[in-house]
């Protein structure tokens, strides 16, 4: 029993890291541009397919493929900002529609390039740890990569937002774009950076988890729904809220999945979110109502 509890905790930590990478990017984009990026799940999918193409098909080293995935998806993010989201800034419905349009484009582009079937990705590492010295509790190294990436990247993002001038500019834009513009902050630049970081985080999450999950062109669907729940529970616009909510949601969802079943876990997760919204209609940490 203690084995199962510890194992479930480890699974939950892994799930929380993974979801935090996705949700924080989504929140950052929303905070700075006031747009909900429905195509965020597809950016995650794109990151996974960079690994499919470079690592599985062309035998490049795994981490090189992951790094290139980060850069590539980040660049896609910049392109999205310039062509799609800039004209739609602070227009949530318009942003929703263009991102749905882009989602369809990305999906069918990948389908045309790679086919609809699931990709087989050889595991980059077979190493498995037993973190508590128990035979029944396992932590594969591949999952540890995801946890480490989440801690490092989100930590770096936190420091960047608090300590650097550019980070201040980003936070100022999120608080009040017009006032930020009056202070000489380029809104276009901060939006570009936010989109690049947010997309890059989703890309890294996809690239690192590609060998662990089912990689196929429609894999973004399941992720985006969970990400929405997390950013709502956390209060849209709050990065800390997103991280807290990712941890809470991951623990609740993993434990209910282990001790009941997956569908019940989804229902519990949604009810948790509804309960938070009923008690605090702007989420745990959300104060502003930009939407």
């Amino acid at each position, binding site marked *: 029993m203690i084995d199962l509890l510890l194992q479930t905790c480890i699974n939950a930590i892994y799930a929380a890291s993974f979801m935090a990478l996705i949700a924080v990017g989504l929140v950052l984009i929303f905070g700075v541009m006031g747009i*909900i990026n429905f195509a965020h799940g597809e950016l995650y999918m794109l990151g996974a397919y960079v690994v499919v193409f470079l690592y599985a098909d062309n035998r490049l080293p795994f981490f090189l493929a992951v790094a290139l995935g980060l850069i590539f998806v980040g660049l896609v993010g910049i392109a999205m900002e310039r062509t*799609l989201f800039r*004209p*739609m800034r*602070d*227009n*949530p*419905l*318009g942003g*929703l*529609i*263009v991102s*749905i*349009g*882009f*989602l*369809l*484009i990305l*999906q*069918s*582009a990948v*389908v*045309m390039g790679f086919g609809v079937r699931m990709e087989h990705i050889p595991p980059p590492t077979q190493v498995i740890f037993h973190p508590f010295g128990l035979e029944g509790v396992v932590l594969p190294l591949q999952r540890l990569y995801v946890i480490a990436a989440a801690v490092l990247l989100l930590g770096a993002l936190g420091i960047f937002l608090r300590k650097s001038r550019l980070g201040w500019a980003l936070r100022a834009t999120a608080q009040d774009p017009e006032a930020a513009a009056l202070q000489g902050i380029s809104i276009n630049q901060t939006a570009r950076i936010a989109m690049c970081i947010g997309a890059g985080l989703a890309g890294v999450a996809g690239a690192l988890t590609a060998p662990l999950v089912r990689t196929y062109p429609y894999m973004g*669907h399941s992720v985006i*729904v969970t990400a*929405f*729940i997390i950013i*709502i529970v956390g209060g*849209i616009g709050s990065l800390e809220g997103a991280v807290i909510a990712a941890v809470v949601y991951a623990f609740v969802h993993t434990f209910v999945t282990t001790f009941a079943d997956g*569908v*019940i876990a*989804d*229902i519990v997760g*949604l*009810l948790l*979110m*509804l309960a938070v*919204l*009923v008690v605090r*209609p*702007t*989420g745990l940490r959300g104060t502003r*109502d*930009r*939407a």
Partner: protein
Amino acid sequence: MPKGGEAKPTAALWKPALLLIAVYAGLIVLPHLLSFSQKEIAVFLLINVLLVVSYRVLTLTGEWSLGHAVIMGVGAYASALYAKALGVPVPLAMLLGAATAGLVAYVLSFPLFRMKGFYFLIGSFAAGEVIRLLWKRFRDPFGGPKGIKGIPGLSDIEIGTLKIAFWDPVNYYYVCLLVVTLSLVVLYRLERSRFGLTFHAVHWQDKLAESVGVDTRRTRTLAFVVASVFGGLAGALLAHYLGTINPNRFDVEEMVFVLIWVIVGGTSTFFGPIIGVVVLTIVNEMVLREMGVDQARPLIYGAILIASVLFLPQGLESLGPKIKRLFAGRPDRPDRPDRRQLAGEPSRD
């Protein structure tokens, strides 16, 4: 009783009346000109017209829901179960299904209308998803992931030697045409009634509306319930035609289509969503399918979506007046719409 705000001279009513007659003449002849699969698409299109027009009722109050596809599903499931498990005659089951959808919406309105704008959008999504997952989880009575099979259809009618069977898409098309037309008339009158004016007031000036004694929460609830009753009716029409429904038929993808139809069409007029669903269905099902570009279909569809929002932010419905102005020789520039005013942007105050 004076007709609310429609004191037009009779001469001005001539044109729209003729247009309406022409459209309906076309709609009555239409199914005989189509292939079998196109006839089926025509039936679905009529049902979707009712779906998007009912969706617009809620958007009149400024709230956008992501639960409408599930509400349609509530109507479908309820009507199917009444007819199959309880043996209620199909037409009555459809009406009861629609009423059930309205009732569910009324219950949901208590938690949901604590939220506004974007939070309502996501809250309604969560509530809908919970309902959908319940269908999926509980095999009895909802049939689990495989859904309900063998839903009774409308029973055949025999008048003398004339036998009308409703599995035939042409005959079911006429049933839908009748039901949808009646529903549209009701919804059209509703929007021009006191209630409809209150919906608009709550959308654009909710504080002011409150100050003159309008209960905004009750008004929003009313709009939500009315939208859901007609959305549920659309679902019931669908269930008894298909004969089988499952939870995935009403998932978020279906909802996204509803949103796309409504937004691409535009929501500032009654006919905007209808234009949206008709044009996009024709483009998607007929033009792109005939062109045989199956894998690229979503790609082209996505590009159309992006282009329509970028270049026609007020929807296809704004195209008519634009073309008119073009022919009148006046420049288009002066009243170019402010993009922040995209019709039906969630209320922000």
